[in-house]
């Protein structure tokens, strides 16, 4: 089994879509929790991961220029991540298909965690 990280990507528009009304927001969240719980039950969830604040600081270059951000990429923010275990990337991708973010215009980026094994 290999480890993969799911980066939950979202945009302001996707956020609006998933919020809609209080009822929709609640349903959306319940779908998320059900999805993660199912991954966990099947033994694929290595770590629930963490939600991330939408904004922070970005430090760039030799001058260590500090800016608030990442505003420039407001259309594509990382909202959080989880770590899953899967046979290979195909299975990791397959498992991500149930992610509720996809129904509201969001995206899941699946990246293999590099391992020390050769």
């Amino acid at each position, binding site marked *: 089994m290999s480890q993969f990280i799911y980066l939950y990507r979202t945009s302001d528009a996707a956020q609006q879509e998933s919020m809609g009304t209080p009822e929709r927001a609640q349903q959306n969240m319940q779908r998320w929790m059900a999805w993660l719980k199912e991954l966990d039950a099947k033994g694929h969830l290595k770590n629930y991961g963490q*939600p991330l604040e939408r904004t922070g600081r970005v430090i760039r270059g030799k001058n260590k220029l500090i800016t608030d951000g990442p505003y420039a990429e407001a259309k594509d923010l990382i909202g959080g991540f989880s770590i899953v275990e899967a046979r290979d990337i195909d299975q990791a991708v397959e498992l991500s298909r149930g992610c509720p973010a996809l129904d509201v215009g969001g995206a899941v980026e699946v990246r293999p965690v590099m391992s020390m094994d050769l």
Partner: protein
Amino acid sequence: MDLSEHLFRRESGRLVAALVRIFGVHNLALAEDVVQDAFCRALDVWKIRGVPDNPSAWLMTVAKRRALDVVRRERTARTFAPELTRWLESEWTLAPVVDESFTSAVIRDEQLRMMFSCCHPSLPEEAQIALILNVLCGFGASEVATAFLTSRAAVEKRITRGKKALANAERLFDLSDDDFGARLASVRAALYLLFNEGYHSASSETAVRAELCDEAIRLTSMLLETEATAEPATFALAALMCLHAARLPARLDAHGDLSSLPDQDRSRWNRALIDRGLALLEQASCGSVATAYHLEAAIAAVHAGSPSIASTNWDAIVELYDRLLKLTPSPVVALNRAVAVAQRDGPDAGLAAIRAIPDADRLRDYPFYPAAIGELELRRGDAASAARAFAAAVGLARNPLERRFLERRLRTAETTSHPAPAGPA
């Protein structure tokens, strides 16, 4: 931990009320933004970390924090609630005022004032209930539209117009205002309408209908928690809602079709709601005036206490309808009375009572007017007349649910008037 059903919707109404107290009703949109932010945050965090032990308290803390930020950032540029201005200006008093606004007693009072404000006489009733559902119950325009079978655009227009009226009023209605009595009557009328939308809802989705009824009962119960609004008429309204809602589970049969009172499986009536309704009706009886709500609740109570149509005290029901007619003359009430007369004195008496309805032309588009005639014709054995009446009723059906029900009655009348030829022995 699992979320209780509709938690966000319910919290939305409470949080908006608390924030409106701080920001002022002219900043209703700002209050709604802050609540939306709190939900966004909850969505981000809870979906990965799970629901906290006390989700309501969590949401409230986030909303409070945002409220403090907003006031600090904008207090020079924006006017907030005029009566709180001095407290919001000073850092000494700002946090305590925000805390106070989120206590349950204050939230309840603010929700009441909001409910009264939504029932402003300049707004048509359907706008009042759309506004109540949106602001106090957290329904989105699309959800209101689904419940009322109208377009989302129409509902949005109603809500926008209503919010403009709220903002222009500059402050929420106060229960000590001069026109309190009149406004309380409008609030009751709006809640009654909201309940009936759910109860008779054209929407065939049982869930939507039950939700509207639940919301109407919840808001009416809020009126009962405050002395000024807990009048006998309010108790009677609450009683009426509970007694009717108790029958809701039996209004649709196993096939999802409408089931009329005589055919309902009474074991599916909600006993707990009936008991609650009867207790409320008892409390409603302390005044000297019997309102229309009292009489309607009393009629519902007679039905609720009867094990079957045959054992129902139709004398009592006809008498209650007589009193109701005197109080609020309406052709629909007269029609219901005629049906009760038919139960008491037979179909001919019922048909005579229907013919005697003075303003029957106002029932021209009401499918249950010809349907009632059809039932009585059928009962007195004139199946051909019954079929004609049911055919007219089918033509007036306002939704698929009514159409299926009336078509079924039409088929019954047709097979009775032209019995199928007997097959070979």
